[in-house]
Protein backbone atom coordinates (compact mmCIF):
# COMPACT_ATOMS: atom_id res chain seq x y z
CA UNK A 1 0.00 0.00 0.00
CA UNK A 2 2.69 2.45 1.04
CA UNK A 3 4.83 1.28 -1.84
CA UNK A 4 2.12 2.04 -4.37
CA UNK A 5 1.59 5.45 -2.77
CA UNK A 6 5.28 6.23 -3.17
CA UNK A 7 5.28 4.98 -6.76
CA UNK A 8 2.35 7.22 -7.64
CA UNK A 9 4.04 10.21 -6.03
CA UNK A 10 7.26 9.43 -7.85
CA UNK A 11 5.87 8.99 -11.37
CA UNK A 12 2.95 11.40 -11.23
CA UNK A 13 3.73 14.09 -8.69
CA UNK A 14 0.92 16.31 -10.02
CA UNK A 15 -1.83 14.03 -8.73
CA UNK A 16 -3.46 15.49 -5.60
CA UNK A 17 -2.55 13.79 -2.36
CA UNK A 18 -6.01 12.53 -1.49
CA UNK A 19 -6.49 10.95 -4.92
CA UNK A 20 -3.09 9.24 -4.70
CA UNK A 21 -4.00 7.89 -1.29
CA UNK A 22 -7.35 6.63 -2.55
CA UNK A 23 -5.62 4.97 -5.53
CA UNK A 24 -3.07 3.36 -3.24
CA UNK A 25 -5.87 1.91 -1.15
CA UNK A 26 -8.21 0.90 -3.97
CA UNK A 27 -5.69 -0.50 -6.44
CA UNK A 28 -4.61 -3.56 -4.38
CA UNK A 29 -8.27 -4.25 -3.55
CA UNK A 30 -9.22 -4.11 -7.23
CA UNK A 31 -6.32 -6.35 -8.24
CA UNK A 32 -7.04 -8.92 -5.54
CA UNK A 33 -10.78 -8.97 -6.22
CA UNK A 34 -10.25 -9.22 -9.98
CA UNK A 35 -7.67 -11.98 -9.80
CA UNK A 36 -9.50 -14.08 -7.27
CA UNK A 37 -12.89 -13.71 -8.92
CA UNK A 38 -11.30 -14.98 -12.13
CA UNK A 39 -9.75 -17.84 -10.20
CA UNK A 40 -13.19 -18.54 -8.69
CA UNK A 41 -14.85 -18.67 -12.11
CA UNK A 42 -12.10 -20.95 -13.40
CA UNK A 43 -12.35 -23.12 -10.31
CA UNK A 44 -16.04 -23.86 -10.85
CA UNK A 45 -15.18 -25.01 -14.36
CA UNK A 46 -12.16 -27.07 -13.25
CA UNK A 47 -14.20 -28.66 -10.49
CA UNK A 48 -17.02 -29.69 -12.77
CA UNK A 49 -14.60 -31.02 -15.37
CA UNK A 50 -12.58 -32.96 -12.78
CA UNK A 51 -15.67 -34.38 -11.10
CA UNK A 52 -16.95 -35.37 -14.50
CA UNK A 53 -13.69 -37.18 -15.22
CA UNK A 54 -13.87 -38.99 -11.87
CA UNK A 55 -17.47 -39.99 -12.51
CA UNK A 56 -16.72 -41.13 -16.05
CA UNK A 57 -18.54 -38.38 -17.92
CA UNK A 58 -17.44 -35.27 -19.80
CA UNK A 59 -18.59 -32.40 -17.64
CA UNK A 60 -19.55 -29.06 -19.21
CA UNK A 61 -18.60 -29.07 -22.91
CA UNK A 62 -21.18 -26.95 -24.73
CA UNK A 63 -20.40 -23.29 -23.96
CA UNK A 64 -17.19 -22.14 -25.60
CA UNK A 65 -14.12 -24.30 -26.21
CA UNK A 66 -14.18 -27.34 -23.89
CA UNK A 67 -16.93 -25.61 -21.94
CA UNK A 68 -14.65 -22.85 -20.76
CA UNK A 69 -17.37 -20.19 -20.78
CA UNK A 70 -19.69 -22.26 -18.62
CA UNK A 71 -19.12 -20.00 -15.54
CA UNK A 72 -20.24 -16.97 -17.58
CA UNK A 73 -23.38 -18.78 -18.69
CA UNK A 74 -24.07 -19.89 -15.12
CA UNK A 75 -23.65 -16.36 -13.82
CA UNK A 76 -26.00 -14.90 -16.44
CA UNK A 77 -28.56 -17.60 -15.81
CA UNK A 78 -28.55 -17.02 -12.06
CA UNK A 79 -28.68 -13.24 -12.52
CA UNK A 80 -31.82 -13.40 -14.63
CA UNK A 81 -33.65 -15.88 -12.43
CA UNK A 82 -36.50 -14.77 -10.24
CA UNK A 83 -35.52 -13.97 -6.70
CA UNK A 84 -38.00 -15.75 -4.43
CA UNK A 85 -38.27 -14.78 -0.77
CA UNK A 86 -40.50 -17.02 1.35
CA UNK A 87 -43.57 -15.22 2.72
CA UNK A 88 -42.72 -16.08 6.33
CA UNK A 89 -39.05 -15.24 5.99
CA UNK A 90 -37.34 -12.53 7.99
CA UNK A 91 -36.82 -10.20 5.03
CA UNK A 92 -33.86 -8.14 6.22
CA UNK A 93 -31.84 -11.04 7.61
CA UNK A 94 -32.72 -13.18 4.60
CA UNK A 95 -31.25 -10.47 2.38
CA UNK A 96 -28.16 -9.81 4.50
CA UNK A 97 -27.07 -13.44 4.90
CA UNK A 98 -25.73 -14.12 1.36
CA UNK A 99 -23.92 -10.78 1.33
CA UNK A 100 -22.28 -11.51 4.67
CA UNK A 101 -21.15 -14.95 3.48
CA UNK A 102 -18.94 -13.39 0.84
CA UNK A 103 -17.42 -10.67 3.05
CA UNK A 104 -15.25 -12.80 5.40
CA UNK A 105 -14.04 -14.89 2.48
CA UNK A 106 -12.69 -11.79 0.75
CA UNK A 107 -11.44 -10.17 3.94
CA UNK A 108 -9.04 -13.06 4.53
CA UNK A 109 -7.45 -12.26 1.16
CA UNK A 110 -6.17 -9.02 2.67
CA UNK A 111 -3.34 -10.83 4.45
CA UNK A 112 -2.45 -13.50 1.87
CA UNK A 113 0.92 -12.70 0.26
CA UNK A 114 0.23 -13.49 -3.38
CA UNK A 115 3.65 -12.56 -4.75
CA UNK A 116 6.96 -11.30 -3.48
CA UNK A 117 6.30 -7.84 -2.09
CA UNK A 118 2.60 -7.99 -2.88
CA UNK A 119 0.36 -8.40 0.10
CA UNK A 120 -2.62 -6.03 0.36
CA UNK A 121 -2.08 -5.38 4.08
CA UNK A 122 0.97 -6.70 5.91
CA UNK A 123 -0.57 -6.96 9.37
CA UNK A 124 1.85 -8.14 12.00
CA UNK A 125 -0.84 -10.51 13.24
CA UNK A 126 -1.78 -11.69 9.74
CA UNK A 127 -2.49 -15.34 10.41
CA UNK A 128 -4.47 -14.61 13.55
CA UNK A 129 -6.54 -12.12 11.55
CA UNK A 130 -7.23 -14.72 8.86
CA UNK A 131 -8.30 -17.34 11.40
CA UNK A 132 -10.46 -14.83 13.26
CA UNK A 133 -12.23 -13.43 10.22
CA UNK A 134 -12.95 -16.81 8.68
CA UNK A 135 -15.10 -17.67 11.72
CA UNK A 136 -17.41 -14.85 10.71
CA UNK A 137 -18.96 -17.02 8.01
CA UNK A 138 -20.70 -19.11 10.70
CA UNK A 139 -22.99 -16.25 11.59
CA UNK A 140 -23.89 -15.66 7.96
CA UNK A 141 -24.79 -19.32 7.48
CA UNK A 142 -26.84 -19.29 10.64
CA UNK A 143 -28.63 -16.10 9.56
CA UNK A 144 -29.49 -17.74 6.25
CA UNK A 145 -30.86 -20.85 7.92
CA UNK A 146 -32.79 -19.01 10.57
CA UNK A 147 -34.27 -16.29 8.38
CA UNK A 148 -35.66 -18.80 5.87
CA UNK A 149 -38.21 -20.16 8.38
CA UNK A 150 -37.67 -23.62 7.04
CA UNK A 151 -36.89 -26.72 9.10
CA UNK A 152 -34.32 -27.97 6.61
CA UNK A 153 -32.59 -24.61 6.52
CA UNK A 154 -32.43 -24.41 10.30
CA UNK A 155 -31.09 -27.96 10.56
CA UNK A 156 -28.40 -27.13 8.04
CA UNK A 157 -27.53 -23.96 9.92
CA UNK A 158 -27.25 -25.75 13.27
CA UNK A 159 -25.06 -28.39 11.67
CA UNK A 160 -22.78 -25.81 10.16
CA UNK A 161 -22.41 -23.98 13.47
CA UNK A 162 -21.54 -27.18 15.35
CA UNK A 163 -19.14 -28.21 12.61
CA UNK A 164 -17.28 -24.93 12.29
CA UNK A 165 -16.99 -24.47 16.05
CA UNK A 166 -15.56 -27.99 16.43
CA UNK A 167 -13.07 -27.75 13.59
CA UNK A 168 -11.88 -24.31 14.61
CA UNK A 169 -10.09 -25.80 17.62
CA UNK A 170 -7.75 -28.36 15.97
CA UNK A 171 -7.19 -25.89 13.13
CA UNK A 172 -5.84 -23.19 15.43
CA UNK A 173 -3.85 -25.78 17.38
CA UNK A 174 -2.24 -26.97 14.14
CA UNK A 175 -1.43 -23.39 13.20
CA UNK A 176 0.25 -22.82 16.59
CA UNK A 177 3.11 -25.11 15.54
CA UNK A 178 3.82 -22.98 12.49
CA UNK A 179 3.76 -19.82 14.58
CA UNK A 180 6.23 -21.43 16.99
CA UNK A 181 8.53 -22.31 14.13
CA UNK A 182 8.37 -18.95 12.38
CA UNK A 183 8.33 -16.89 15.56
CA UNK A 184 5.92 -14.41 14.01
CA UNK A 185 2.24 -14.02 13.20
CA UNK A 186 2.84 -12.01 10.05
CA UNK A 187 1.99 -13.92 6.89
CA UNK A 188 4.97 -12.47 5.03
CA UNK A 189 7.20 -13.32 8.00
CA UNK A 190 6.00 -16.94 7.92
CA UNK A 191 6.78 -17.23 4.21
CA UNK A 192 10.23 -15.72 4.67
CA UNK A 193 10.90 -18.17 7.53
CA UNK A 194 10.58 -21.04 5.04
CA UNK A 195 13.54 -20.08 2.90
CA UNK A 196 16.30 -22.52 2.13
CA UNK A 197 16.56 -26.03 0.75
CA UNK A 198 13.57 -28.08 1.94
CA UNK A 199 12.74 -25.18 4.20
CA UNK A 200 8.98 -25.43 3.68
CA UNK A 201 7.29 -26.38 6.91
CA UNK A 202 5.53 -29.29 5.26
CA UNK A 203 8.89 -31.07 4.96
CA UNK A 204 9.32 -31.34 8.74
CA UNK A 205 7.59 -34.12 10.70
CA UNK A 206 5.53 -31.69 12.80
CA UNK A 207 4.86 -29.58 9.73
CA UNK A 208 3.50 -32.53 7.78
CA UNK A 209 1.16 -33.52 10.60
CA UNK A 210 0.03 -29.92 11.05
CA UNK A 211 -0.47 -29.62 7.28
CA UNK A 212 -2.74 -32.67 7.15
CA UNK A 213 -4.74 -31.51 10.18
CA UNK A 214 -5.01 -27.98 8.84
CA UNK A 215 -6.04 -29.13 5.38
CA UNK A 216 -8.76 -31.41 6.77
CA UNK A 217 -10.03 -28.67 9.06
CA UNK A 218 -10.00 -26.15 6.22
CA UNK A 219 -12.11 -28.50 4.14
CA UNK A 220 -14.51 -28.95 7.05
CA UNK A 221 -14.59 -25.25 7.76
CA UNK A 222 -15.73 -24.32 4.27
CA UNK A 223 -18.10 -27.31 4.28
CA UNK A 224 -16.84 -29.09 1.20
CA UNK A 225 -17.61 -32.72 0.52
CA UNK A 226 -16.85 -35.09 2.43
CA UNK A 227 -17.71 -32.59 5.17
CA UNK A 228 -20.67 -30.94 3.47
CA UNK A 229 -23.20 -31.89 6.13
CA UNK A 230 -24.68 -28.36 6.33
CA UNK A 231 -25.96 -28.77 2.77
CA UNK A 232 -26.32 -32.52 2.52
CA UNK A 233 -28.62 -32.94 -0.46
CA UNK A 234 -29.75 -36.44 0.40
CA UNK A 235 -30.80 -35.51 3.93
CA UNK A 236 -31.89 -31.90 4.26
CA UNK A 237 -32.59 -30.73 0.67
CA UNK A 238 -29.90 -28.03 0.39
CA UNK A 239 -29.38 -27.09 4.02
CA UNK A 240 -29.11 -23.45 4.86
CA UNK A 241 -29.64 -22.24 1.28
CA UNK A 242 -32.77 -24.27 0.57
CA UNK A 243 -34.87 -21.10 0.34
CA UNK A 244 -32.47 -19.11 -1.80
CA UNK A 245 -32.71 -18.64 -5.53
CA UNK A 246 -31.26 -16.48 -8.24
CA UNK A 247 -28.29 -14.34 -7.47
CA UNK A 248 -28.46 -14.85 -3.71
CA UNK A 249 -27.86 -18.54 -4.33
CA UNK A 250 -24.97 -17.60 -6.58
CA UNK A 251 -23.53 -15.50 -3.75
CA UNK A 252 -23.61 -18.51 -1.43
CA UNK A 253 -21.79 -20.59 -4.02
CA UNK A 254 -19.30 -17.78 -4.50
CA UNK A 255 -18.76 -17.45 -0.76
CA UNK A 256 -18.08 -21.17 -0.47
CA UNK A 257 -15.66 -21.28 -3.38
CA UNK A 258 -13.82 -18.09 -2.49
CA UNK A 259 -13.52 -19.33 1.09
CA UNK A 260 -12.06 -22.58 -0.26
CA UNK A 261 -9.56 -20.62 -2.34
CA UNK A 262 -8.57 -18.32 0.52
CA UNK A 263 -8.16 -21.21 2.95
CA UNK A 264 -5.98 -22.81 0.28
CA UNK A 265 -4.01 -19.57 0.10
CA UNK A 266 -3.49 -19.60 3.87
CA UNK A 267 -2.41 -23.25 3.70
CA UNK A 268 0.08 -22.47 0.94
CA UNK A 269 1.41 -19.52 2.94
CA UNK A 270 1.83 -21.47 6.14
CA UNK A 271 3.06 -24.85 4.90
CA UNK A 272 4.13 -24.76 1.27
CA UNK A 273 6.41 -21.74 1.37
CA UNK A 274 3.91 -19.30 -0.12
CA UNK A 275 5.42 -17.49 -3.09
CA UNK A 276 8.89 -18.98 -2.61
CA UNK A 277 10.37 -21.13 -5.33
CA UNK A 278 13.28 -21.20 -7.78
CA UNK A 279 13.51 -17.80 -9.41
CA UNK A 280 11.25 -15.95 -7.02
CA UNK A 281 14.09 -13.63 -6.04
CA UNK A 282 15.13 -12.55 -9.53
CA UNK A 283 15.59 -8.77 -9.66
CA UNK A 284 13.14 -7.68 -12.38
CA UNK A 285 10.68 -10.51 -12.95
CA UNK A 286 10.82 -11.93 -9.43
CA UNK A 287 7.29 -10.81 -8.60
CA UNK A 288 5.87 -12.55 -11.67
CA UNK A 289 7.74 -15.81 -11.00
CA UNK A 290 6.75 -15.75 -7.34
CA UNK A 291 3.10 -15.14 -8.24
CA UNK A 292 3.35 -18.09 -10.60
CA UNK A 293 4.69 -20.27 -7.80
CA UNK A 294 1.94 -19.15 -5.43
CA UNK A 295 -0.84 -19.93 -7.89
CA UNK A 296 0.76 -23.24 -8.89
CA UNK A 297 0.79 -24.35 -5.27
CA UNK A 298 -2.73 -23.03 -4.77
CA UNK A 299 -3.76 -25.09 -7.78
CA UNK A 300 -2.35 -28.23 -6.19
CA UNK A 301 -4.32 -27.61 -2.99
CA UNK A 302 -7.49 -26.93 -4.98
CA UNK A 303 -7.04 -30.13 -7.00
CA UNK A 304 -6.59 -32.10 -3.77
CA UNK A 305 -9.87 -30.60 -2.57
CA UNK A 306 -11.71 -31.61 -5.74
CA UNK A 307 -10.12 -35.05 -5.67
CA UNK A 308 -11.28 -35.59 -2.09
CA UNK A 309 -14.73 -34.40 -3.07
CA UNK A 310 -14.94 -36.83 -5.94
CA UNK A 311 -13.70 -39.90 -4.10
CA UNK A 312 -15.04 -39.85 -0.57
CA UNK A 313 -18.63 -40.27 0.60
CA UNK A 314 -20.10 -37.85 3.10
CA UNK A 315 -19.39 -38.58 6.77
CA UNK A 316 -22.06 -38.92 9.44
CA UNK A 317 -22.55 -36.23 12.08
CA UNK A 318 -21.17 -38.34 14.93
CA UNK A 319 -18.19 -39.37 12.79
CA UNK A 320 -17.57 -35.75 11.89
CA UNK A 321 -17.58 -34.45 15.46
CA UNK A 322 -15.77 -37.51 16.87
CA UNK A 323 -13.07 -37.11 14.23
CA UNK A 324 -12.42 -33.53 15.28
CA UNK A 325 -12.50 -34.00 19.04
CA UNK A 326 -11.07 -37.49 19.48
CA UNK A 327 -8.46 -37.66 16.74
CA UNK A 328 -7.46 -34.28 15.33
CA UNK A 329 -7.41 -32.28 18.57
CA UNK A 330 -5.25 -34.74 20.62
CA UNK A 331 -2.96 -35.15 17.63
CA UNK A 332 -2.60 -31.38 17.29
CA UNK A 333 -1.73 -31.14 21.00
CA UNK A 334 0.91 -33.88 20.70
CA UNK A 335 2.19 -32.06 17.65
CA UNK A 336 2.88 -28.98 19.77
CA UNK A 337 4.96 -31.15 22.13
CA UNK A 338 6.81 -32.59 19.14
CA UNK A 339 7.54 -29.06 17.97
CA UNK A 340 8.90 -28.22 21.43
CA UNK A 341 11.18 -31.27 21.26
CA UNK A 342 12.39 -30.15 17.84
CA UNK A 343 12.98 -26.65 19.13
CA UNK A 344 15.06 -27.71 22.12
CA UNK A 345 16.88 -30.62 20.46
CA UNK A 346 20.67 -30.33 20.50
CA UNK A 347 20.97 -30.84 16.74
CA UNK A 348 18.67 -31.11 13.75
CA UNK A 349 19.02 -34.87 13.35
CA UNK A 350 18.04 -35.61 16.95
CA UNK A 351 15.11 -33.23 16.63
CA UNK A 352 13.96 -34.91 13.43
CA UNK A 353 14.14 -38.40 14.91
CA UNK A 354 12.62 -37.58 18.28
CA UNK A 355 9.69 -35.56 16.98
CA UNK A 356 8.99 -38.12 14.25
CA UNK A 357 8.95 -40.95 16.80
CA UNK A 358 6.67 -39.04 19.18
CA UNK A 359 4.26 -38.25 16.36
CA UNK A 360 4.28 -41.79 14.96
CA UNK A 361 3.50 -43.25 18.39
CA UNK A 362 0.72 -40.70 18.90
CA UNK A 363 -0.84 -41.39 15.50
CA UNK A 364 -0.76 -45.16 15.95
CA UNK A 365 -2.19 -44.93 19.48
CA UNK A 366 -4.96 -42.50 18.50
CA UNK A 367 -5.99 -44.54 15.50
CA UNK A 368 -6.03 -47.69 17.66
CA UNK A 369 -8.21 -46.01 20.26
CA UNK A 370 -10.60 -44.58 17.70
CA UNK A 371 -11.16 -47.58 15.47
CA UNK A 372 -13.26 -50.59 16.26
CA UNK A 373 -15.94 -48.64 18.08
CA UNK A 374 -19.37 -50.06 17.54
CA UNK A 375 -22.46 -48.12 18.32
CA UNK A 376 -25.55 -49.48 19.99
CA UNK A 377 -28.83 -49.16 18.23
CA UNK A 378 -29.92 -45.59 18.67
CA UNK A 379 -32.84 -44.84 20.91
CA UNK A 380 -34.76 -41.64 20.41
CA UNK A 381 -35.91 -39.84 23.50
CA UNK A 382 -38.95 -38.13 22.10
CA UNK A 383 -40.42 -41.07 20.21
CA UNK A 384 -42.22 -43.53 22.45
Amino acid sequence: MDAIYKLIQHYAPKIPDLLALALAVLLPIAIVMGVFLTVFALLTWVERKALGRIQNRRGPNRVGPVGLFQPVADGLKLLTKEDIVPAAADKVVHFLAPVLTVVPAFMVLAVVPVAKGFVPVDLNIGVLFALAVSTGSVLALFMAGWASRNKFSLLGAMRSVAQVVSYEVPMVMAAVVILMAAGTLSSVGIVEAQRGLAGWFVFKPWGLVAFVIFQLCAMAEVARTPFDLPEAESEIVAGYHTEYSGFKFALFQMGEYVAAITMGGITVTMFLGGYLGPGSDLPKIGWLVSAGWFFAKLGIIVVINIWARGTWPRVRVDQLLGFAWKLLLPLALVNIVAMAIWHFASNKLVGWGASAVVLAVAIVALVKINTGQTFEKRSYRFIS
Partner: protein
Amino acid sequence: MTIVFLTLSAITVLGALLAVTLRNLVHCLLALVLFFMGIAGHFFLLKADFLGAVQILIYIGAVAVLILFAIMLTRNISGTEGGRGSLGGAWWLGVGIATTLAGAMCVFVRRSDLVSKLPYGATEEGVVKEIGKLLVTDWVVPLEIMAVLLTAALIGAVVIALEEEKKR
Protein backbone atom coordinates in the same frame (compact mmCIF):
# COMPACT_ATOMS: atom_id res chain seq x y z
CA MET B 1 -8.79 9.50 10.61
CA THR B 2 -11.58 11.48 12.27
CA ILE B 3 -14.05 10.47 9.55
CA VAL B 4 -13.22 6.81 10.06
CA PHE B 5 -13.45 7.22 13.82
CA LEU B 6 -16.82 8.95 13.65
CA THR B 7 -18.29 6.38 11.25
CA LEU B 8 -17.05 3.51 13.39
CA SER B 9 -18.37 5.14 16.55
CA ALA B 10 -21.76 5.73 14.93
CA ILE B 11 -21.92 2.07 13.88
CA THR B 12 -20.87 0.91 17.34
CA VAL B 13 -23.39 3.09 19.18
CA LEU B 14 -26.12 2.13 16.72
CA GLY B 15 -25.36 -1.57 17.25
CA ALA B 16 -25.44 -1.17 21.01
CA LEU B 17 -28.73 0.74 20.95
CA LEU B 18 -30.36 -1.76 18.60
CA ALA B 19 -29.16 -4.65 20.73
CA VAL B 20 -31.15 -3.42 23.71
CA THR B 21 -34.19 -2.03 21.91
CA LEU B 22 -35.11 -4.61 19.28
CA ARG B 23 -37.77 -7.14 20.28
CA ASN B 24 -36.64 -10.17 18.31
CA LEU B 25 -33.84 -11.96 20.17
CA VAL B 26 -31.99 -13.03 17.04
CA HIS B 27 -32.10 -9.47 15.73
CA CYS B 28 -30.69 -8.33 19.08
CA LEU B 29 -27.85 -10.79 18.71
CA LEU B 30 -27.05 -9.59 15.21
CA ALA B 31 -27.03 -6.00 16.46
CA LEU B 32 -24.69 -7.11 19.23
CA VAL B 33 -22.38 -8.62 16.61
CA LEU B 34 -22.42 -5.30 14.78
CA PHE B 35 -21.39 -3.66 18.05
CA PHE B 36 -18.53 -6.16 18.52
CA MET B 37 -17.39 -5.45 14.98
CA GLY B 38 -17.37 -1.74 15.73
CA ILE B 39 -15.22 -2.29 18.81
CA ALA B 40 -12.83 -4.48 16.81
CA GLY B 41 -12.66 -1.72 14.22
CA HIS B 42 -11.74 0.76 16.93
CA PHE B 43 -8.94 -1.52 18.08
CA PHE B 44 -7.61 -1.74 14.52
CA LEU B 45 -7.87 2.04 14.21
CA LEU B 46 -5.82 2.44 17.39
CA LYS B 47 -3.18 0.10 15.88
CA ALA B 48 -3.97 -2.55 18.47
CA ASP B 49 -4.16 -5.24 15.78
CA PHE B 50 -3.79 -8.09 18.23
CA LEU B 51 -6.67 -6.92 20.41
CA GLY B 52 -8.80 -6.37 17.32
CA ALA B 53 -8.23 -9.87 15.98
CA VAL B 54 -8.79 -11.39 19.41
CA GLN B 55 -11.98 -9.36 19.74
CA ILE B 56 -13.27 -10.88 16.49
CA LEU B 57 -12.05 -14.38 17.36
CA ILE B 58 -13.54 -14.47 20.85
CA TYR B 59 -16.56 -12.20 20.79
CA ILE B 60 -17.88 -12.95 17.31
CA GLY B 61 -16.46 -16.44 16.85
CA ALA B 62 -17.25 -17.74 20.32
CA VAL B 63 -19.45 -15.52 22.49
CA ALA B 64 -21.97 -14.70 19.76
CA VAL B 65 -22.23 -18.37 18.77
CA LEU B 66 -22.71 -19.31 22.42
CA ILE B 67 -25.52 -16.76 22.79
CA LEU B 68 -26.96 -18.12 19.56
CA PHE B 69 -27.18 -21.62 21.01
CA ALA B 70 -28.73 -20.23 24.18
CA ILE B 71 -31.33 -18.34 22.13
CA MET B 72 -32.20 -21.41 20.10
CA LEU B 73 -33.05 -23.20 23.35
CA THR B 74 -35.49 -20.54 24.55
CA ARG B 75 -39.11 -19.90 23.70
CA ASN B 76 -40.56 -16.61 22.54
CA ILE B 77 -37.63 -15.70 20.28
CA SER B 78 -39.69 -13.20 18.34
CA GLY B 79 -40.53 -11.32 21.55
CA THR B 80 -44.25 -11.19 20.70
CA GLU B 81 -45.57 -13.19 23.66
CA GLY B 82 -46.56 -11.04 26.64
CA GLY B 83 -44.38 -8.77 28.68
CA ARG B 84 -43.31 -5.22 28.08
CA GLY B 85 -40.60 -4.34 25.60
CA SER B 86 -37.10 -4.28 26.90
CA LEU B 87 -37.34 -0.50 27.11
CA GLY B 88 -40.59 -0.49 29.08
CA GLY B 89 -40.98 0.23 32.77
CA ALA B 90 -37.92 1.33 34.64
CA TRP B 91 -35.79 2.34 31.68
CA TRP B 92 -34.71 5.53 33.42
CA LEU B 93 -33.20 3.40 36.21
CA GLY B 94 -31.12 1.48 33.66
CA VAL B 95 -29.96 4.69 32.02
CA GLY B 96 -29.03 6.10 35.43
CA ILE B 97 -27.01 3.03 36.44
CA ALA B 98 -25.25 2.90 33.07
CA THR B 99 -24.32 6.59 33.17
CA THR B 100 -23.05 6.33 36.75
CA LEU B 101 -20.94 3.28 35.95
CA ALA B 102 -19.50 4.80 32.79
CA GLY B 103 -18.80 8.08 34.58
CA ALA B 104 -17.08 6.32 37.47
CA MET B 105 -14.95 4.30 35.04
CA CYS B 106 -13.97 7.44 33.13
CA VAL B 107 -12.97 9.20 36.35
CA PHE B 108 -10.90 6.33 37.67
CA VAL B 109 -9.23 5.53 34.37
CA ARG B 110 -8.22 9.17 34.00
CA ARG B 111 -6.95 9.34 37.56
CA SER B 112 -5.01 6.09 37.56
CA ASP B 113 -1.36 6.06 36.59
CA LEU B 114 -1.48 2.45 35.49
CA VAL B 115 -0.87 3.25 31.83
CA SER B 116 2.28 5.25 32.50
CA LYS B 117 3.50 2.57 34.90
CA LEU B 118 3.24 -0.23 32.33
CA PRO B 119 6.80 -1.48 31.94
CA TYR B 120 6.09 -3.18 28.67
CA GLY B 121 7.14 -1.36 25.57
CA ALA B 122 4.03 -1.54 23.42
CA THR B 123 6.01 -1.53 20.20
CA GLU B 124 4.23 -2.43 16.99
CA GLU B 125 6.28 -5.54 16.32
CA GLY B 126 6.62 -6.92 19.78
CA VAL B 127 3.13 -6.74 21.25
CA VAL B 128 2.26 -10.38 20.71
CA LYS B 129 5.72 -11.49 21.80
CA GLU B 130 5.50 -9.35 24.95
CA ILE B 131 2.05 -10.65 25.81
CA GLY B 132 3.23 -14.21 25.32
CA LYS B 133 6.27 -13.73 27.52
CA LEU B 134 4.26 -12.05 30.26
CA LEU B 135 1.65 -14.79 30.22
CA VAL B 136 4.23 -17.42 31.12
CA THR B 137 6.25 -15.28 33.54
CA ASP B 138 4.46 -12.60 35.56
CA TRP B 139 0.93 -13.85 34.95
CA VAL B 140 1.52 -17.58 34.98
CA VAL B 141 -0.50 -18.18 38.17
CA PRO B 142 -3.70 -16.50 36.91
CA LEU B 143 -3.24 -18.29 33.59
CA GLU B 144 -2.97 -21.67 35.30
CA ILE B 145 -5.96 -20.91 37.54
CA MET B 146 -8.01 -20.07 34.46
CA ALA B 147 -6.89 -23.27 32.77
CA VAL B 148 -7.92 -25.32 35.83
CA LEU B 149 -11.26 -23.51 35.99
CA LEU B 150 -11.97 -24.20 32.33
CA THR B 151 -10.98 -27.85 32.67
CA ALA B 152 -13.29 -28.17 35.68
CA ALA B 153 -16.14 -26.63 33.70
CA LEU B 154 -15.46 -29.00 30.82
CA ILE B 155 -15.47 -32.06 33.07
CA GLY B 156 -18.61 -30.77 34.76
CA ALA B 157 -20.37 -30.46 31.43
CA VAL B 158 -19.38 -34.00 30.47
CA VAL B 159 -20.59 -35.34 33.83
CA ILE B 160 -23.97 -33.62 33.44
CA ALA B 161 -24.33 -34.97 29.91
CA LEU B 162 -23.43 -38.50 31.07
CA GLU B 163 -26.06 -38.48 33.84
CA GLU B 164 -28.75 -37.68 31.34
CA GLU B 165 -27.58 -40.59 29.24
CA LYS B 166 -28.06 -42.97 32.15
CA LYS B 167 -31.60 -41.80 32.91
CA ARG B 168 -32.92 -42.80 29.52
